């Protein structure tokens, strides 16, 4: 399959890229692992592609103590090998489950979140960690909270002339995190996945975050359910309550990966498992 004809521009500075994106009917090309298949299927088209792979200044992981800044062109494979295992273990666990080995060698964190696929791995991780997305244009820099960035399926808060330049993750301390992904087959998008962060102090829950992919149009943060456990000891009953509340608040889609009913059941099971209760 060939995409329809497009022009090609490979800028060597971010400014050149932003100038071009502002003026032309153009899409940025990061790793291309979602964009190229969509161009081939002719689901989308663009007059120009702006290849960001010459912008090495957008590929980095910077640990600033209380937060970690990750350049948008950082590849999944870099996150798996790099130092985020210690600083943002939840992101590390998700990164190693994105697509497959080959996809992780091309795909980038900025590209993945800019695609805003509701079944992708990073959106729920960003939402659970209250990460911030930094967008650059030639006029301004904008900072958007993860919860507002994912506006709808394949619909991120990116304006004409903007690209995602960086993702900022606050570092959690004293938390246990888990990324649980249920797939039909190895390498598939999540049927349901859960990004969880839990802080327990003196046997009682101080903070809990539950964010799911694959169950809604956007990553779903189960804020009401999270509150149920705060101040309490974890028990089989209250974990079940949390799982029930989280799963009854959404109406997941029915598609080839699973029916709405089944997705909700899976949500319950992985929530209970992640929190250490029996499924």
């Amino acid at each position, binding site marked *: 399959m060939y995409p329809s004809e497009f*022009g090609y521009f490979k800028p060597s500075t971010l400014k050149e890229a932003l100038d071009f994106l502002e003026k032309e009917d153009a899409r940025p090309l990061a790793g*291309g*692992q979602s964009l*190229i298949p969509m161009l*081939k299927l002719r689901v989308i088209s663009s007059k120009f592609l702006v290849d960001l792979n010459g912008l090495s200044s957008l590929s980095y992981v910077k640990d600033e103590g209380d937060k970690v800044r990750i350049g948008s062109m950082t590849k999944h494979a870099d996150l798996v090998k790099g130092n985020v295992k210690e600083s943002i273990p939840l992101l590390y666990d998700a990164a190693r489950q994105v697509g497959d080995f*080959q996809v992780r060698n091309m795909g980038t964190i900025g590209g993945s979140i800019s695609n805003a696929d509701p079944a992708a791995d990073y959106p729920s991780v960003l939402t659970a960690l209250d990460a911030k997305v930094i967008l650059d244009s030639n006029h301004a820099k904008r900072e958007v909270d993860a919860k507002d960035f994912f506006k709808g399926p394949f619909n991120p808060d990116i304006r004409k002339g903007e690209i995602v330049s960086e993702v900022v993750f606050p570092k959690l301390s004293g938390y246990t995190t888990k990324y649980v992904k249920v797939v039909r087959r190895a390498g598939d998008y999540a049927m349901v996945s859960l990004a969880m962060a839990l802080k327990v102090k003196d046997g009682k829950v101080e903070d809990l975050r539950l964010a799911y992919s694959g169950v809604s149009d956007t990553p779903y943060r189960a804020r009401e359910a999270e509150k149920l456990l705060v101040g309490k000891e974890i028990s089989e009953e209250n974990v079940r309550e949390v799982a029930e509340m989280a799963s009854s608040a959404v109406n997941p889609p029915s598609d080839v990966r699973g029916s709405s009913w089944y997705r909700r059941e899976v949500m319950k099971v992985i929530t209970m498992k992640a929190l250490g209760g029996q499924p």
Partner: protein
Amino acid sequence: MVNPGEKVKVRVKINGVEYEENVSPRKLLVHFLRDLGFTGTKVGCDTSTCGACTVLLNGKSVKSCTVLAVQADGKEIITIEGIGDGKLHPLQEAFSDNFALQCGFCTPGMIMQAYSLLKENPTPSDEEIKDGMHGNICRCTGYQNIVKAIKEASKVRP
């Protein structure tokens, strides 16, 4: 910058030899390679699922049906034709010895991915092999012998 319909110059090194071609930006790397005669690289699913088109781009395995030829400009590519150095590579030997192929269509992609995996992890466990190879699909063998062959090849490092 090239406009839609125009061609762009791509200079790459394939298995150690330099090539320079003018290609349309929409040309996929897999077609670029096959048109130059590197037909060991297969087009399987053409949707980045099956891995039959796996090649190494600057030492990293990629699915060449999901990379534009122009993205490879200035880079080095290794295909199945480039790993043996005149004789069979230990991975090719091991695939043959262990009956790790039947129709053989997925094999070049399997071997290139296994090559990449062993470069990063020279002594993988069975689980690590399965995890590293899950982007490659085989419809004949049931995978057992593929895992066996990769394990065996990992013991005979060239």
